[in-house]
């Protein structure tokens, strides 16, 4: 990979690590807390050696208690620190549900702005890594219903850095979702120095004329691969990486749909009540008469989780091939 001056090539793990490192270096109000983030340096080694450099007061190995990891971070944030809480796997976030939904998201609102909660909760999510029922879930739909929260799910290392910086700077709580299959699989150029990417801004990865594909996370990479394949077959597909799930970039979606007149939403999370449902409803409300075909969603089947056994995981997950089939069908509609 050719590297632009002022950039370097990182994978997603390295991008998270570098951004956290800079945040710790630049602001001593920043503390990291979570399970095994200190001595072990996080189970993916994201915070390796941080404890040696920044000390155990700032890199806190917590007891295994997710509700209070988030709850204590809320109290730190209310008292003027800038905590970055880690939930070791997104599957373990359920015990913290009340602290996120009932407390963090409502701190500003219920105190009428007297108290705020500038808090980042990072967590690895997603499948394709033989993670079985409890190490592979997608959790975004459980939280995107909640006003007061922001949710980010970047796919590329440069976006990881820019969006994580924006999340850390943000005055409100942000749930930062890192797809763990992309952690070491996806590499890319990352600009040096501090920069932010605004939350709520999608990225048009590939321009096209006949179909808009909206996705995020791991599936963005597969959708891009499928769209490029269709290009060889003479079909022109536009691919949008949402990057932020809440707030969501309506303008980017509508601009694209008004041009291509067809929409396919692809996500790894379940179809029923998923992110695609909200996008479908929004496009139906705002751009129905721009459409030349039905809005389609390619999502996970309506089962509780992907299985541990390879065929069960394979059946649950999509693939560039399945995505290409869905794109072809809708282009030809």
């Amino acid at each position: 990979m050719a590297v632009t001056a002022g950039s370097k090539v990182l994978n997603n793990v390295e991008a998270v690590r570098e951004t956290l490192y800079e945040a710790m270096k630049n602001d001593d109000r920043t503390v990291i807390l979570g399970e095994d983030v200190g001595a072990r340096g996080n189970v993916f080694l994201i915070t390796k050696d941080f404890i040696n450099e920044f000390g155990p007061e700032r890199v806190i190995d917590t007891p295994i208690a997710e509700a209070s990891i988030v709850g204590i971070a809320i109290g730190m944030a209310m008292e003027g620190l800038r905590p970055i809480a880690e939930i070791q796997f997104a599957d373990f976030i359920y015990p913290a549900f009340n602290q996120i939904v009932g407390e963090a998201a409502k701190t500003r609102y219920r105190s009428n702005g007297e108290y705020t909660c500038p808090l980042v909760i990072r967590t690895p999510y997603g499948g394709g890594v033989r993670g079985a029922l409890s190490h592979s879930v997608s959790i975004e739909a459980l939280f995107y219903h909640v006003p007061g929260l922001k949710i980010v799910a970047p796919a590329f290392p440069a976006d990881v850095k820019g969006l994580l910086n924006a999340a850390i700077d943000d005055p409100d709580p942000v749930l930062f979702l890192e797809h763990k299959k992309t952690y070491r699989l996806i590499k890319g150029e990352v600009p040096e120095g501090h920069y932010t990417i605004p939350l709520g801004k999608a990225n048009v990865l590939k321009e096209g004329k006949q179909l808009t594909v909206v996705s995020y996370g791991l599936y963005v990479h597969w959708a891009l691969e499928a769209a490029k394949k269709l290009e060889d077959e003479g079909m022109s597909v536009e691919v949008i990486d949402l990057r932020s799930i809440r707030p969501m970039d309506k303008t980017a979606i509508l601009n694209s749909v008004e041009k291509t007149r067809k929409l396919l939403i692809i996500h790894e999370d379940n179809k029923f009540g998923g992110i695609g449902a909200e996008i479908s409803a929004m496009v139906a409300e705002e751009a129905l008469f721009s459409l030349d075909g039905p809005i389609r969603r390619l999502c996970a089947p309506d089962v509780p989780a992907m299985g541990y056994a390879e065929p069960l995981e394979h059946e649950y997950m999509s693939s560039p091939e399945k995505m290409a089939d869905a794109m072809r069908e809708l282009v030809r509609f």
Partner: protein
Amino acid sequence: MASKSGTAKASFERHGLTDEQLVQMLRTMLMHRRLEGRGFELNRQGKIPFASAGEGHEAVQAGAAMAFVRGKDILVPYYRDLGLDVGIGLSPLEVLLSLFARAADHSGGRQFPHHYASRKLGLYSISSVLAAQLPHAVGAAYAIKYRKEAGRAVLTTTGDGATSEGEFHESMNFAAVHKLPIVFLCENNEWAISTPLAKQMANPNIVDRAAGYGMPGKQVNGFDPIACYAAVKEAMDRARSGGGPTLIEAKCYRFLAHTTDDDDRTYRSREEVAERRKDDPVPNFERFLVERGVLTAEGLEDLKRSVLAEANEATDRAEAMPYPAPSDLYTNVYADTHQPWR
């Protein structure tokens, strides 16, 4: 303990408190009872939809408030802490604005009564979910310790009901591991709405749990404001000087139903309530101060009159103030906008 319940026969030792401080504590207790009664009156008059009850908690809250250092300490209370909030400086007007859900209320009329939020007072914003505020208190205590702000501590409170929640355990545990400057005060009134202590826990002494976390524990008679003051003062002083957390269990009793929407005749006998009323801390403490010559009978009447006058004035002023505007529904969702779309 003097009785099975732990609330009978308050001894009222002075613990170095001045006459002025003792009168101030009684005033807090009288104001607590008056304002809470006002909530019930306004509800029965159809002027407000809801009020909650803390009768029986006056002594523990007035005592704890006396141990709180205004301008330094942080209070992370629970929803039955009207007397504690008033005791650290919340005004009767602020209480009535909360009851009437007026625009000038701390939450702008969003929250249930007695869910305050004031940085000036060091009073944290809470929800109504039991024990959910405890990790916030622990996080605030962590920040104080991290910034090496000696001489500050966090006081956080719950009822007995919250001790069954996971966050009660998680918070005590983390605070003890990190030796944080925090005091957990449990106001054990023996009832979680309709569920008695015996159905909540096999060991009725909540204080015993302190040992499990490796922190000191102290059980006090929650009907004795001076004993509660002394226990909280000792624990807060220890917290402020780096000695770590303490669990205090104050045994008290809830004389009224849980809220204006509750009917406690459905789950406990009138005889039980009447029996416990005999130890009502408010008249007991009045009598003590008069008997000891801290207050004259006349002085007591003056005090009661001034509390009533202040409560009445606050009621009239708050009632005359405006509700939030419908457009206020949309503010303070995020720092910028409430729209989920960009």
